[in-house]
């Protein structure tokens, strides 16, 4: 099976892809079962503008709602994320690991390696789409839900094609730069911005056509579930994918390959320049390495900066003026909303700025942003030291294992707080600029609860990090747990089900903090959960044999 670059790449990746896709299939079955048991009449009166915002097709029924809720949002992000991970690992990943030299020491050209990697990506996307298609066909049959007139295959084809495009974008960026950070970061950024833009732009009169600039537009705008394959859109996605692949081939052949080399950051340039050398030296040369906390923070500062800026500008500040642009639309349907429906989005009134911010900023993006940062720090900072084999030389210093856990925890908490603050500042500024008159105290309360839920899953990652030293486990278990908990929570809210109180997300937006202010009880529950998980991490790390390699 390790006969070729192609088969090795497939072999390296199939487990992760399988788990991700199977999880989506299971979520679909779950969502469909829950939608089946609730009164769907609540959807029938909804205005089109709102449906677009929530990603629900106009003539919604059980199956359509389930497909959209699971495949269109989570599915697009998960499959896109997998493709981006594979794309950035293709060339840039081999360079970062320092394995590109030995790989190309074999009689294989750069182009051939790239083709093999791209083929593996294509194959796994096709297989993923097939699995999603099977799950999409089988689930309604198990549950006895009608799928008449629905073209699941077409829907899944669009999903797969869009994900492949993001994967090839990452591949091309990696091939040109050799930097995994740029490849995955920029691609993921494009995907998230595209996801948000396609939801919002059509609501603003005169801006609708701008949505065509974003790849995600070609995923769902033609509503393939009801209208079948839009071959024009598929051709566009495929054409762009081919173009990116050609660019990747050119890119990887024209530059010097890196050999486990490290990038040059802004601070490095400042240190090198005579004028700024002294100040930069103080910052990078002494402050950065003054403690474990400071050093850990400096290692993840890029991620923190990008996420904080995204939350501040895009999800915060910009949302204010955008709300005003779609205000007329939204005002029309203030009365139409049944209460159960509003519960799904945290109980806000969509025509109110609070309800709108809840859907766009707080519902999904804020917890994701926080978890990206907290889980990254928890997993990479602790288990990462074992995976990179630096834990030995770190612990050769007179610091206890407990102190290492404590210092890394501090970094995680500070990072969560920074993203929470950036979100607070952004939303407050958006409200102020747009003249929306939202309560700053309530925004602060919501951001605090968001930070706490981010820290809760970060703490879970920290515990797994401490107990196992395996980075993958510390990343994917909390991410999976968060995904399942988030979907279940949405279903429970919609269902009015009592078991929702067992899910952490219930204590995030369940009390509608943006309208009602701080729910101290909920905050306390999240905080206690976080503290418990962190407390368990200390003995877990202190007791076990450290790994020699990841």
């Amino acid at each position, binding site marked *: 099976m390790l006969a070729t670059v192609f088969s090795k790449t497939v072999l390296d990746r199939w487990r992760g892809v399988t788990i991700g896709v199977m999880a989506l299939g299971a979520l679909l079955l779950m969502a469909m079962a829950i939608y089946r048991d609730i009164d769907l009449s609540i959807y029938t009166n909804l205005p089109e503008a709102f449906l677009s915002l929530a990603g629900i097709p106009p003539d919604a029924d059980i199956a359509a709602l389930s497909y959209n809720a699971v495949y269109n949002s989570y599915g697009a992000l998960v499959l896109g994320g997998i493709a981006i991970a594979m794309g950035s690992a293709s060339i840039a990943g081999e360079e970062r690991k320092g394995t590109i030299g030995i790989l190309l020491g074999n009689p294989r050209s750069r182009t051939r390696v790239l083709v093999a990697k791209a083929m593996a990506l294509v194959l796994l996307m096709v297989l993923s789409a097939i699995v999603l298609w099977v799950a999409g066909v089988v689930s309604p049959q198990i549950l006895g839900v009608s799928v008449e007139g629905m073209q699941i295959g077409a829907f899944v084809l669009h999903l797969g094609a869009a994900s492949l495009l993001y994967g090839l974008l990452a591949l091309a960026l990696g091939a040109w730069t050799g930097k995994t950070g740029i490849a995955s970061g920029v691609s993921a950024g494009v995907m998230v911005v595209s996801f948000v833009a396609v939801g919002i732009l059509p609501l603003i009169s005169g801006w609708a056509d701008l949505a065509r600039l974003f790849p995600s537009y070609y995923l769902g705008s033609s509503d393939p579930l009801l209208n079948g394959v839009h071959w024009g859109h598929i051709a566009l996605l495929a054409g762009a994918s081919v173009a990116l692949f050609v660019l990747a081939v050119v890119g990887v052949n024209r530059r010097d390959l890196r050999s486990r080399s490290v990038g040059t950051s802004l601070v490095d340039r400042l240190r090198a320049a005579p004028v700024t050398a002294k100040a930069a030296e103080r910052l990078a040369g002494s402050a950065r390495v003054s403690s474990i906390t400071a050093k850990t923070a400096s290692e993840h500062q890029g991620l923190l900066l990008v996420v904080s800026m995204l939350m501040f500008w895009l999800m915060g500040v910009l949302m204010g003026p955008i709300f005003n642009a779609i205000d007329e639309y939204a005002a029309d349907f203030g009365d139409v909303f049944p209460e159960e429906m509003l519960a799904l989005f945290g109980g806000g009134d969509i025509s109110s700025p609070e309800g709108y911010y809840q859907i766009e900023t707080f519902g999904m993006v804020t917890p994701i942003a926080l978890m990206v940062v907290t889980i990254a720090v928890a997993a990479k900072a602790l288990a990462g030291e074992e995976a990179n084999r630096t834990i030995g030389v770190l612990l*050769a210093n007179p610091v206890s294992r407990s102190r290492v856990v404590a210092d890394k925890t501090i970094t995680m908490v500070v990072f969560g707080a920074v993203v929470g603050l950036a979100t607070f500042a952004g939303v407050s500024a958006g409200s102020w600029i747009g003249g929306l008159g939202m309560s700053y105290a309530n925004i602060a309360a919501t951001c605090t609860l968001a930070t706490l839920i981010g820290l809760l899953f970060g703490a879970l990652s920290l515990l797994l990090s401490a107990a196992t030293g395996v980075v993958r486990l510390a990343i994917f278990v909390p991410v999976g747990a968060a995904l399942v908990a988030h979907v279940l929570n949405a279903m429970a809210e919609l269902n009015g089900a009592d078991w929702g109180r067992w899910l952490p997300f219930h204590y995030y937006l369940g009390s509608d903090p943006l309208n009602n202010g701080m729910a101290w009880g909920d905050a306390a529950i999240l905080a206690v959960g976080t503290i418990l998980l962190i407390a368990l991490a200390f003995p877990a790390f202190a007791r076990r044999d450290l790994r020699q390699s990841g």
Partner: protein
Amino acid sequence: MTHDPAAIALRTEGLTKHYGDVQALVDLTIDVQPGEVFGFLGPNGAGKTTTIRCVMDEIRPTSGRASILGMDCHAQSVEIRRHIGYLPSDLALYPNLTGKDTLTYFANLRGGVEWSYVDELTERLGAQLDKKVGDLSSGNRQKVGVIQAFMNRPQLLIMDEPSNGLDPLVQREFQTMMREHVTDGGSVFLSSHTLSEVQRVADRVGIIRDGHLMALESVSSLRSKAMRRVQLEFGTAIDGSVFDGVPGVRDVVVEDHHAYLSYDGKMDALLKRLADQYDVVDITTEEADLEEIFLTYYREDVAL
């Protein structure tokens, strides 16, 4: 040799580590004395690094215990690390930090580092501290590792395959540094499979294979036990039967005035026998090479 527990640099007592059914280390008992370089020798996978990782409290022994300067390696591990310098095998550092940043980081965590001493070490090894560690060759990265181990003037140096990647000149300098360290009263626990290095710097060696300690002796007594080639020249032609019954003599070849043989043990008995009967003109012996000894211990057919 001291028996004061607080003075013994490193002591393991019945140290044993199992990974499931695999016995990585079995009942290891050794002492490293103050003022000595203790060479710890063995082929790849013999248990050298497992021993060091137990001592460093990275992993916990299945049974037995280890102590450094009288302090328990597990219970007092943090305090111990104020007094030791450690260079892990296959050293990994933080690729985004420069050598200087790396040393600053560890100096902050450790305390008691004089920068003038760091500068001196840097100069002796010819290390490059202004480049990012990720951009350094493995040898230059290893120099940063050596400096961080020495920089707080520790009492005990624990070095796991320290010469990896170092060029011969730097290896020589590094070996001098280890000797100076023990001359000043410090100790070195040197794990290695580079025989020439151990031969040059170690006072005593422990030889480990498949987790078992095979031998524990001073380098000089190991050498004296070693088989050596002896070439003898006589004033007259000799009869080969003169060597019969001399303990330790093997593979005798007699050619007229000359005899060639392998010899193992003290020379005393052989010389007495020869001097009684013949006129010995010249004796040439090749210096015993540790390599021969180690190869003997490493060979699979030697019973454990």
